[in-house]
Structures are given as structure tokens and as C-alpha cells.
């Protein structure tokens, strides 16, 4: 059993690598494989090709990898914690919080009369918003007995944030509106290397946190009551899975805007293909699969229309929806899907 899983994971990793290379080759400008290999091998190449690979292609591909991994692990934890197959990284309103932070920064200047601090990046505003929501949820998670109540409260908090965004949008002008809308369409582009490294650090940390909690997460599949009866500290696992999800979803949203569907679809796909519910396997599998799916989405976004890139959220939706339908049709009962 272990070797079969091992081989499949190896194949998955190879696929990831190939897609990564393919993503490096996709973009507005023609790039030859020769140039790419020269770059990778450290050989001298055309100055412009270097700039394109180094400042456009590599950051983009890495971002897709990291975001795909982050969202999938976040979605996995949410599905397990709430035993809800439709749960995803944004279900607790974390991305709405991020959106509110961004909305205040982009549209609130007029409404609140605040001036933006010059070096406050958009990411800080987004992460700040996500963090506030995360804090509220963590404090509530201690007090609330039933995990379903926590879920509903999370959804409601998200709805409040969305409503406030609506108000800000109503009073903003064309430019501000467009700016916000564009942000909310998501983008994997334009991350500088220091942002990239920070994101990678946080994501790896949060995924490690989840991995170390595999046993507790597994036991949650029996329901919280049983989990408690075999010695799992329910408050603790709630805390750390919400924290991990908040870090993952918050960071991705902060740097790339909200990217949907990946977090819901990839855990299901992973469970289906590997026929396991063991989180110590699922977490690494989701990380690789998430990277694969988002790389595919990115390749498609650059490939479908000449010279321009389609917004990443539209592609993930177009990819995600058929996959969800396929999963639904091939399963007996979605409610007990895991």
C-alpha cells in the first residue's frame, strides 16, 4: 500500500515539475526553450530574455506553486474541521476581511479621509483585515461549544465585511472601483522576490503546523465527540487549524487577491485519487496537487488569449466547476464524502 502511494506521489511531483517548466515558457512574449535552459544553467543569455524570465516568469510560476499549495491545505483543514465538503479557505470570512482591508485602503481615502502611508503595501492592508477576522474567530473558538456555530458565525462575519465593502464601493469613483474590482479578480503576477520569500516562509510554516496536527485532524473525521474521547484536545486543534488556515488564506489573499475554487476542489481530488483520508499523506499531496492545478490555470490564462492574461479567478472557476460536478456525479453520498 505504501509503495503504491509512493509511486503516485512521485508521478505527481514529476507532473508538477513539468508544468512548472511549461509555465515558465508561457507568457506574452515568445521565449525559447533554449533561452530558458541557458538561464537555468547560468549561461549568458540575452539581457531582455533574462529580465523577462527573472522578473516575470519565475515569480509568476513560484507564486502559482505557493498559492496552490497554501489554498489547498487551508481548504483541507476547513473541510475536516467542519466536516463540510463545500468548505474552503475563505469560508470563515478571512478573504472578506482581507478585501475589507484593501477596500479601506483603495476606496476609503475618500470616505474616511485617511491618507495612505506610502510604504504600507496593499498586502499589509489585506493581511491586516484578514488578521482582525482571524483574531475574532480564534477568541470565539474557545467559547463556542459547537463547531457548527463557529462556522455560521464565521460566515456571518464574512458577510458583514462584504456588506461594508459594498458601502465603500457605493461612494467611490470610477477609478477606485475599477482598482478594487481588478484586485478582486486575483493576480499571480508582479510579486517581488522579497515578498515571494516571505509568502513562502509563512506558507511553509502554516503547512508544517497542519502536518504536525495530522493525527488530531484525522480524529476529527469521527466527529468532535469521539475525538475528545480518544484524548484529542478539541480547543487546541480548532485553534491551530483556524490559525493555520488564516495564515494560508490571509497570505495568499494579501499578495494575490482572492483566488477561488482551488481550496475546495483540490482536497476532494486528492482524496479521490489517493483513496485516503489520512492527513499526514493528504497534506503533502494537496500541496503538490494544488500547485499543479494553479499552474495549469496560469498556463491557460496566458495561453487562451494572445498577448494578454485572463484574470486568474475566472480560470480557476472554469476549471473548478466541471471538476466539482464530476466529483459529485461519481460519488454516492457527498455528505459523507470523507
Amino acid at each position: 500500500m505504501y509503495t503504491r502511494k509512493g509511486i503516485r506521489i512521485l508521478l505527481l511531483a514529476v507532473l508538477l515539475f513539468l508544468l512548472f517548466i511549461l509555465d515558465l515558457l508561457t507568457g506574452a512574449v515568445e521565449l525559447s526553450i533554449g533561452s530558458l535552459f541557458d538561464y537555468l544553467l547560468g549561461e549568458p543569455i540575452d539581457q531582455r530574455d533574462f529580465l523577462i524570465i527573472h522578473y516575470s516568469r519565475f515569480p509568476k510560476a513560484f507564486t502559482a506553486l505557493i498559492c496552490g499549495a497554501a489554498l489547498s491545505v487551508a481548504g483541507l483543514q476547513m473541510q475536516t474541521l467542519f466536516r463540510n465538503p463545500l468548505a474552503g479557505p475563505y469560508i470563515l470570512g478571512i478573504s472578506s476581511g482581507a478585501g475589507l482591508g484593501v477596500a479601506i485602503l483603495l476606496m476609503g481615502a475618500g470616505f474616511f479621509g485617511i491618507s495612505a502611508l506610502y510604504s504600507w503595501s496593499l498586502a499589509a492592508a489585506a493581511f491586516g483585515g484578514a488578521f482582525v477576522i482571524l483574531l475574532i474567530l480564534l477568541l470565539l473558538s474557545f467559547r463556542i461549544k459547537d463547531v457548527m456555530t463557529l462556522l455560521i458565525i464565521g460566515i456571518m462575519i464574512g458577510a458583514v465585511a462584504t456588506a461594508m465593502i459594498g458601502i465603500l464601493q457605493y461612494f467611490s469613483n470610477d477609478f477606485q472601483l475599477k482598482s478594487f474590482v481588478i484586485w478582486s479578480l486575483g493576480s499571480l503576477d508582479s510579486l517581488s522576490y522579497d515578498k515571494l520569500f516571505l509568502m513562502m516562509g509563512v506558507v511553509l510554516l502554516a503547512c508544517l503546523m497542519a502536518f504536525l496536527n495530522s493525527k488530531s485532524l484525522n480524529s476529527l473525521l469521527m466527529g468532535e465527540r469521539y475525538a475528545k474521547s480518544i484524548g484529542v484536545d478539541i480547543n487546541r486543534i480548532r485553534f491551530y487549524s483556524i490559525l493555520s488556515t488564516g495564515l494560508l488564506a490571509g497570505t495568499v489573499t494579501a499578495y494575490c487577491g482572492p483566488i477561488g475554487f482551488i481550496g475546495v476542489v483540490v482536497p476532494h481530488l486528492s482524496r479521490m485519487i489517493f483513496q485516503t483520508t489520512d492527513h499526514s499523506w493528504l497534506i503533502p499531496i494537496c500541496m503538490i496537487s494544488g500547485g499543479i492545478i494553479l499552474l495549469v490555470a496560469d498556463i491557460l490564462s496566458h495561453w487562451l488569449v494572445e498577448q494578454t492574461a485572463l484574470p486568474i479567478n475566472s480560470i480557476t472557476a472554469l476549471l473548478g466547476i466541471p471538476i466539482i460536478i464530476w466529483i459529485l456525479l461519481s460519488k454516492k453520498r457527498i455528505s459523507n464524502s470523507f
Partner: protein
Amino acid sequence: MRKSLVIILSCFILSLLPACTPQKSIDFEAEGFEKYHHTDEFSIYQKEEEYLIEISHPFPTATRAEYYQLFPAGQNATSIPEITQQIAYPITSMAISSTTHYGYVEALGLVDFIIGASSPQLFYSDRFQSNLDSGMINPIGSTHFNKEILIKSNVNVLFSYALDQASFDEIASLRESGIKVVLVSEFLETDPLKKAEWLKFFALFFGEEKLKRSEAYLTSIGKQYRDIKEAVSHLPNKPKVLMGYPWKGVWHVSGGASYQAQFFEDAGAIYPWAETKAVGSLPLDVEVVLVEGLDCDFWINPGNKQSVDQITEEHADFAQLKAVRKQQVYSNYARSKPSGANDYWERGVVRPDLILADLVNIFHPQLLPDSALYFYKKI
């Protein structure tokens, strides 16, 4: 668990600290620079053949300035740490991201230096369109800049603008990949003449000769503007003017401190919101605007409406407005194309005198009997 929360909170706060460092401003005198020119939004300092441009607001809510250093090509530039971009002049090629930029470049006769532009369909100039068709000008991306195309094109300088932190972040990313980006904030000027003075800004990138030419141009324009303004100031009657158009219950009108309000004042009209402090636009309730608008003699810039019938079809009650009844509704789309291109935003920025003349023709037709409307037309 509380411990990890405290750790994360502190990490978060610590990560924000670098953002709070105050910016050091440049001591121009110490560096040997003298002030050469300034408007509200930009200043030029000069030291022999080197120039420093200070942009006060790289984007509207920015709290720090940007500094561009222009030095003659082939020479060394003085090293000053707070400089945002060092650029050798004359520049060899440029990309622009706004039709207003084109207005300046065209007035300087430097259209052929443009090799890239955003949303090219929005440009009115035939010369631009023909350069576009011949492949001399390439699209460089509209909602986002296409970084790869910009890199590939080897463009010397990209003239762009930033409206908020999001677009500013994008500019930072372009700069990181080696593209020189200069931010133009002419739209933040509240005085039409100062807006025109950005001609000097653009001229500076092409050398002394162009700079002198721009100054002569501006002197002439300035004089024409002031002459008209002077003549108007003696007129006793000042009509009332309404502007803008509602969208979903909200009617944006220019604030009292905006350049549009300045135009109205200089053209001898009474603008109901002249006393407000807003530099941008005010989102007002339709009813509030209608109350003022009822007895306005003229209605300027009703959005993109092409005829009064279009207006009354959408809003039957607007037929009551005095300006509509007296058929005194004017749109600035006289020189426009179906694609949305409008010369008002191209040539208009360097010819405030023509705009002023138009408005005066509308408000006080008897004053300039020999001239015809240029940017405006009656609808």
C-alpha cells in the same frame, strides 16, 4: 495557544515597523541645486546641466514625494541617495499610459518617440493612430501593464500615473525589473494653467532646446488665457452652470477646489458648488443636485450623452431644468470618436486657452464673436 497568538501578533506588528520610517527629503541647496520652476505638483531644480524633478504626490493619497534625476547622456550623475530614478537625457524612446501625456508630447513635436501606449483605441490623434497602424506604437497593456512586452520593447522611459497603492505597487514591480518609470500627476493640478505647465516636465526629458520651446509655448498660451479671463472679469452678468450626470442615484460634480471649478470661475460663471473644498468630485444625491440645477442657465458635460433627447428619455423630469428648456446643454465631445477617444483630454491639457474660449463662448457669446466652439458642441 495564547502564546502562539502573541508571537504572531508581535511578528505582524514588527513587520509593519519598516513602513513607518520617515522619508528623508533632499537638501537641494546643500547639493548645489537651485529651484528652477514649480507648480503645485512638481518642482524642477537645476545644477548646471543636471535637473532634479520632485513629484509631490506620486499618487493622490501619497505622503512621500518621488525624485527623478535627469543628467546629460554620456556624463556622470551626482550621486544622491533619495533619488527614485536616474535618467539620461535626451531619452531615446518613451511609452505613455494616458492620452493627456500625448497632448504634451504632441505639442513638443515628439510624437515619433512614442513606441508604446496603453489602451491605444482611446487616442484621438490621427497621427497617433497611423503610427499605431504602422506598428511603430505597440499596446503595452490596459488594466495591467504587460511587463514582458515593456521589457522586450527596450523602451527608455515609461510615463505612467498611479491612482492608489495598488497601481503604485505595480509600478514598483516594473521598476524592479529594470524599466524606468516616471509618474506624471498632472491630473492633480487644480489650476488649468499649471496643468499646462507640465509641458516643461516632458520637455526636460529631451534637452535644453525642447525646454526653451516649451517655455515659449506656455508664455503664448498663458497670455491668451489671461487676456480672455481679464475681459470676462469685467462682465456684470454671471450665469449659473450645472455639470455632470447621475448614475444610479448618485450625481458626481466637481468640487469647488477642482480645476473644472477654476475654469468656470475664470469663464465668468457661477458654479453652485464653488464654495466646497473638494479637489476631486463630490458624490451627491440626485435630488440635491436638481435643486441647484433647476435654475442653472447652462448645463455642461452631461456625461457622454449625445443629445437632449437621450437625456430626457432616461430622466423625463430633467426636461424641467432651465438649461434643457432653453436648449443650453453643451457636451465636450465635439472632437471625439465612438471608441471613446476625446481630444478634450489630449490637446485640451496644453490648450487651456481654447477650453476657456469655448466656455466663454457658451456663457458670454457676445464677447468673442469671431471664434467658434472647438472642444464643445451644443447637444
